[in-house]
């Protein structure tokens, strides 16, 4: 009996995520909401099981997956080469290309190249930081980068005026600017195209489960449900491939 069989028998699939990653997962007026909730509700319907949410600090999510605390991760991660060596990713559900968030009052930045010589923040050990550094090398003077444990501290520091911008995936940044338009504004994306997918385990036990989830997502994509969800949460839709086999980073 493999993972999929066990889940079907129990009628419940356990998924783990964190809740401080708007607009994918966040707490709005006390309820856990976001794109992930909708996506997995649909996946649950396709598989004919209930979804049980386990929410914890991001530091506990991937270790929790490996320890078997839940069947798969419901928080998206940028699909990268290194990560694909350790985990199996679902088909992309959104674009993860890096864009810039700046202060709404700052007129000196209108395009990505304007960050030359300025200090830009990003999340520690994230794919976005790597791309920011990559992009920075092409500018003179190169921007200084500052890394934060989570993006929320970076946003706070941008508001406090210590940094000129934050580099993060477009969907996230668009959401931030939409929430506090008087403080933040979005600058167009830079960098190579990347995508968000949900990580799961690579082992044989989980193979059929991951296959089933992949199929469900592709079905949602094909019948337009995924697009509706993207419209609802990001205010736009993304053109994503059916699978990422060779990530750009």
């Amino acid at each position, binding site marked *: 009996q493999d993972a999929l069989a066990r889940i079907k028998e129990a009628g419940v699939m356990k998924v783990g995520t964190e809740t401080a990653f708007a607009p994918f997962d966040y707490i709005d007026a006390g309820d856990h909401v976001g794109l992930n909730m909708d996506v997995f509700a649909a996946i649950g319907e396709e598989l004919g099981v209930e979804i049980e949410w386990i929410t914890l600090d991001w*530091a506990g999510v*991937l*270790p929790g997956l*490996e*320890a078997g605390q839940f069947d798969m991760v419901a928080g998206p991660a940028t699909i990268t080469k*290194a*990560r694909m060596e*350790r985990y199996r990713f679902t088909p992309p559900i959104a674009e993860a290309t890096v864009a810039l968030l700046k202060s709404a009052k700052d007129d000196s930045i209108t395009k990505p190249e304007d960050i030359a010589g300025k200090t830009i923040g990003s999340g*520690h*050990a994230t794919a976005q930081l790597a791309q920011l550094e990559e992009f920075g090398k092409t500018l003179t003077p190169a921007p200084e980068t*500052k*890394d*934060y*444990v*989570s993006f929320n*501290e970076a946003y*706070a*520091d941008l*508001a*406090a*005026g*210590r940094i000129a911008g934050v580099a993060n995936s477009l969907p996230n940044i668009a959401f931030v600017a939409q929430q506090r338009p008087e403080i933040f504004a979005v600058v167009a994306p830079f960098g190579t195209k990347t995508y968000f997918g949900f990580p799961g385990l690579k082992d044989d036990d989980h193979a059929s489960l991951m296959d089933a989830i992949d199929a469900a997502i592709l079905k949602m994509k094909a019948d337009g449900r995924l697009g509706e969800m993207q419209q609802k949460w990001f205010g736009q839709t993304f053109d994503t491939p059916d699978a990422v086999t060779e990530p750009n980073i």
Partner: protein
Amino acid sequence: MGFDFDVILSKQDQLISGIAMTIFVWVVGTLLAALIGFIVATARRYGGVLVDKALTVPIEVIRGTPFLVQLFLLYFGGPYIGLSLDALPAGLLALSVYGAAYFAEIFRAGYQSVPPGHVEAAECLGFTRIQIIRNILLPEMALLVIPPSVNMAIILLKETALLSLITVPEMTMTASAIGSQEYAFVEAMVLIALVYWVLVELAGLLGRFAEKKLSRYRLAKA
């Protein structure tokens, strides 16, 4: 889930600089905390009822709220009132003020532990207040103050991990970053735990050593 320490150790340089940062922040922060705490306790003892009462409020507020919250308010809220500190100074300031509130209480207990008669004897002999603090009170309270001070130092060591939230590259951040880049969380956690354990035991050892040194007049109990 196999253990694979090679992955972690391949990032030696980063790790060592993280550990060095932790030790630096810890040692400097703890010393500053003890110093400020001592000054506060002294001001409370000699500054009259008003100063005593006035200082109680910040002490209780600082002891009563999490370090995380204080750190955030100082670092992200400071700029709004014109106090824009860099990460490291902000971290050190927050850590030493936080610790100082506890040290102030430790030293208060220390002051109370010295029999008033010992101070009166010195007053009668014409010692000035500073001489009394330096020659009578401090040496006499030392034995009582050391064990809780070591405890406090250990607690401050653990709080240094939070400084990573304001971008101080201390070792928990470094190690967990390596862990997440290389996908070796458990290995990273075990490594951090080991380093902390060593530092804590060192602090304990130092405390016990100081106690032993100071207690020579006690060992010979008649």
